[in-house]
Every structure is written in C-alpha cells, then in structure tokens.
C-alpha cells in the first residue's frame, strides 16, 4: 500500500513540475490559464450551454423566430439566420475543437516520437527509410492532404482526427530523431548495453526520458497545429457535419452570406481560435526555454 501512495505522490510531483515549467514566465502563465479556461468550458459544455444547438429559438417578447439577432440578455452572443443560439454553439464547439486538438495532438506526437526514436537509435537503412517517408510528407501541401484524406474516408470526426494526426507528426519526428542521435552516443547508453539491456529497453527507458522536455514542447505544438488545421478544414466545409466546431461555425456563417452584417457571429469563433492557439504556443515557448536553456540567457 505505501508503494501505491508513493506512486500517487510521484505523479502529483511530476504534474506540479509541469505546472512550474509552464508558468515559469509571464506568457506561459497567461497561456496556461487561457488553456485551462477552454478545457474547463469543454469539460462542462453541456451544462453551460443554455439551449440545444440545432434548435430554433423564439424571441421571448415577440414570440417570433429569433432570426439573426444581435447579442441580448436572452441570447448573450446573438443568433444565426436560422435562429440558433450562438452562445450555445460556441460552448459546444469548444468541446469539439479541444477534443480534436488533444486527440490529434497526442496521436501525432506518438507517431512522431516513435518514428524519431527508432530512426535515430537504429540508424542505417531504417533511419533512411523512415526519414524519407517523413520527407515525402513534407512534400505534401498541408491542407489539400487533409482535405483529400477527409473526402476519401468521409466527414466523420474520427477521420478528421486521423487525417490531422497523420500530417502533423512530421516535424516532431525529425526533431526527436536528431536529439536521439545525440543522446545515444552518451556513455550511459553504452553502459546500459553492457548490462544486457535490449534495444527497446534502451530506447524507451533510457533515451525517452532524456528527450522528454522536447517531447512535451512538441506535444503542445502539435495540439496547436491540430486545432489550426481542424479550423481550416472545417471552414472549407470538410468538418464533421454532425458536430460543431469553431471552424464549422465560420463555415455556416460563410454559407449564410451574412458575413458583413453579423459581427457577433464571426468574432467569437475567430477570437477563440486565435486565443487558444496563441496560448498553446506560449506554453510551447515555456517548454522550449526549459528544453534549451540557452534561450533563457539571451534575455
């Protein structure tokens, strides 16, 4: 039993450490709280949203369909041309966007980290093959690739996530490979080999913890990139039609042709995208300073 509670304390310590790293500078601190805010909204979205998102709303005073109303007490962010409540939509969209960002971000860092570690550690023909694959992916234009994947597999949210993850991993793979090559030359790796450690053990127990700061940095980057990609794809109409995301809201606005009139419609999703992505980049910066202390000295 004491071992179990020790482990819990260990996990808490690690989390506390991550918090310390993220909030080590002002931008990181801002980023952390903005991200925390969006995550909380995403978590409690159904509780916060006052109306169902795909249901026409009626004006409480006049009893008429609330078409394209500007923000009021009844509808804090106004309504769409079909009378949908925008505040409810943006809250629910937060949930979709955060989920897509997190899942794609994690899948892509998984792919990137493993490919980077394996290519860097084994070297030779394996490295050559994996890195050329990465190069091919670099040759692909970002959005068309996602769009083609989505149109091939369909506009389901699973495929959107997968399509994004399949392209976002490339940079993390390259960077982690480079770091792995440097770390595998260190003496403690030879020492591990002399103790009879298997290759996989050396990769995941000895090298991985040493590339961790870099890995966290790229996790944060990948989440940000996933969110941007999702917004772009949704804005072009390649999102999942059954769920709503920030990009999807902008797409609806574009379809309605009311872009010039309904400032309350395009401003919130746009601000949310920029705020969340910028905050994630701020967090990345904090990790970057941690992973590369030389950046700190230049201040």
């Amino acid at each position, binding site marked *: 039993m004491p071992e179990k509670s020790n482990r819990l304390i260990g996990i808490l310590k690690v989390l506390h450490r991550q918090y310390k790293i993220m909030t080590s500078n002002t931008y990181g601190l801002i980023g952390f709280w903005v991200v925390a805010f969006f995550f909380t909204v995403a978590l409690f979205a159904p509780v916060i949203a006052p109306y169902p998102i795909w249901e026409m709303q009626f004006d409480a005073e006049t009893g008429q369909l609330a078409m394209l109303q500007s923000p009021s007490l009844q509808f804090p962010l106004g309504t769409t041309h079909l009378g949908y409540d925008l505040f409810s939509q943006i809250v629910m969209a937060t949930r979709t966007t955060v989920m897509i960002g997190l899942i794609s971000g994690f899948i892509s860092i998984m792919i990137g980290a493993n490919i980077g570690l394996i290519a860097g550690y084994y070297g*030779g023909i394996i490295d050559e093959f994996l890195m050329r694959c990465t190069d091919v992916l670099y040759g692909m234009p970002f959005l068309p690739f996602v769009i083609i994947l989505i149109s091939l597999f369909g506009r389901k949210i699973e495929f959107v996530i997968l399509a994004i993850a399949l392209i976002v991993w490339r940079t993390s793979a390259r960077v982690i490979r480079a770091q792995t090559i440097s770390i595998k030359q260190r*003496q*403690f790796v030879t*020492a591990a080999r*002399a*103790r*009879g450690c*298997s290759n996989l053990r050396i990769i995941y127990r000895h090298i991985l913890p040493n590339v961790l700061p870099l890995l966290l940095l790229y996790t944060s980057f990948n989440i940000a990139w996933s969110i941007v990609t999702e917004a772009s794809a949704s804005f072009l109409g390649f999102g999942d039609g059954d769920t709503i995301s920030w990009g999807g809201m902008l797409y609806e606005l574009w379809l309605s042709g009311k872009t010039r009139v309904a400032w309350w419609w395009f401003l919130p999703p746009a601000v949310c995208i920029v705020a969340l992505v910028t905050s994630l980049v701020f967090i990345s910066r904090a990790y970057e300073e941690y992973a590369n202390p030389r950046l700190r000295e230049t201040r």
Partner: protein
Amino acid sequence: MLLDVKNLGVRYRMDGQDIHAVNRLSFQLEEDEIFGVVGESGCGKSSLIKALLRLVARNGSVTADSVNFQGQELLEMPMDQFRKDILWQKIALVPQSAMNSLNPVYKVGPQIVEAIITHKKMPERQARERVHDLFESVGLQKELFDSYPHQFSGGMRQRAMIAMALALDPKLIIMDEPTTGLDVLVQDKILKTLRRIKEDTKCSMMIISHDIAIMSEIATKIGVMYGGGFVEIAPTHDLFKDPSHPYTMGLTNAFPSIRELGKELISIPGSPPVMMREENKCWFEPRCPFATDQCRQSFPEATKTGDHHIVSCLRSADRQKLAKKAKEKATWTS
C-alpha cells in the same frame, strides 16, 4: 579456468581500409584473479573489452579461434542468449568514464533496482535491500539511494557503477580505466574497495589501465599490450623483477619510482604502429633497440620463460642481459 581467449582479432573497416585493432591476442584468466591490462593509447585495450562483451561497433568484425568462458563459447552464442545470460549476470563491465555512465534523469538507487529486477525476477523490496547492501560494500551511504547522478562526486559515481556491476554476483568484472580522472586519494580508496570486494566475492577482475603504477598495486597478474596483442603476461611481482620484453622494460623505465627520486625518466622514442595490415613481423621492432633482422621476418610466437610468465619476443633468451642494457638511457636514444 574462467576465461580462455585464443587468437582474438578485431578489425574495423574504415573508408575501404581495414584497421587491425586487435591481433593474435591470447590470454587465460583463472578464478579469483585480478588481471591488469596495460598499454599505451591505441594499443587495442578498449577493442579487446568490446570484443569480449560483443559490443564492437557495426563496422568492426571479431575473429577468434576460441573465446571460452566457463566452458561456453562466447562468440558462437546467439546474441539474445548472450545478452540475457552472460552480460552483467556473469560478466559485468564498469565502463570507462563511469562519471557519465549513469542515466542523468533517474535517481541512482532506483536505477540499479530497476536493472536488477529486469534481469532477475525478484520483488522490488528485495532488490532495494540488495542495493542498500551494495552501496554499503562499495562505501556509499544508504542515504544517497534517492540522489541524482549529478549530485554525486566523481568518486561516488565510480563507486555507484561498481555497485551496479556487482549487483548480480558476476564471475568476472571488467573495468575500463577505473581510476582515471580521480585524484590520488580517491584512487587509493577505490583500489582498496576493489581489493576488499575481491576478497568477499571471490570474483575475478580484469582491469584495463595505462597506469602501470596502479596495476602494480592491485593486480595479481599483468598483461602488457602492444600492437593489438599481449607481448608479455606475468604475475605482477615477476613482471617488475624480470621484465622479459623490451617494451615492458621501456615501460617500467618510463614511470617514476618513489625510491629513486630525481632519477631521469627514460621514454621510448617513436609512436605506436597504425596497423593497416597483418604483418609477419614483430610490431615493436621499429622502436626496439634490440631488434635483429630476424625480428623483421617472423612474428614472435608466445613462449614461456617461467611457470606463468609468457613473452612474445624472439630474444627472450637474452632477457637478463637486455634488461640491464635497457636501464641505460643511451640504449634508447641512439
């Protein structure tokens, strides 16, 4: 007999050329022995270790008539089995620059515990106790268990590496330059620790160093390497009393002795050979003041000059005369 190596060779392929790092190397190691290997930089010491542990880099190849460890042929064993059954269980390595051989992101104690658990199925608690014992036997305080490697001094890290090597009671511990980079007092303490460990565990040790003074203090038997092979192997006492190879004579000249203060040291002129091909001649011949035409024509086979004294020199019959001459500076400079 613990380890019997016959005619070991290691060559590295570099830019289309072969470098013969180890050539025609043979030696035997008994149980309960401390075998010191000395030689200057580039003589093949590290390649020898790598060959024994099968850690030679990808561009290197190892050949041997036999590398027999407790009746098992090490080089013929499947790599997987070798890794699991031999490495660390039977033969442990304390690597060169042990300072950097601990993973910087793990605490020292848990690092050893984890290594033990993976090799031997044993509960964590038991492994922890084992590490506490190990720490004690190498002279580290138990409180250091939960420290990171960067909190250790060089000597402490060296001790931790020795503790790690001891963890599974290996039969043979190979140490690559165990005292290099440590100050003299710490060196002395480490040597004392090693000697005590040998008394306690009865394991054999193979210690590689370029410091012949350290060897004289700890080794029971010394092998002198030159040109990728042993030119002389003898019990420590015999080696210093009766050096039989001209290189050994030169080597003992080149180290200061506390009894003969102020005496000028004599160094061996020239530099070690770069071994591009296997030649049928004595590798030391170009630097040897006693070389004859014969030395240029045939490789000196190992011959016994005493019970345990093996020399690879064609002129070993004249060794007493040569040893006397080798003490004079003029012999080496002319």
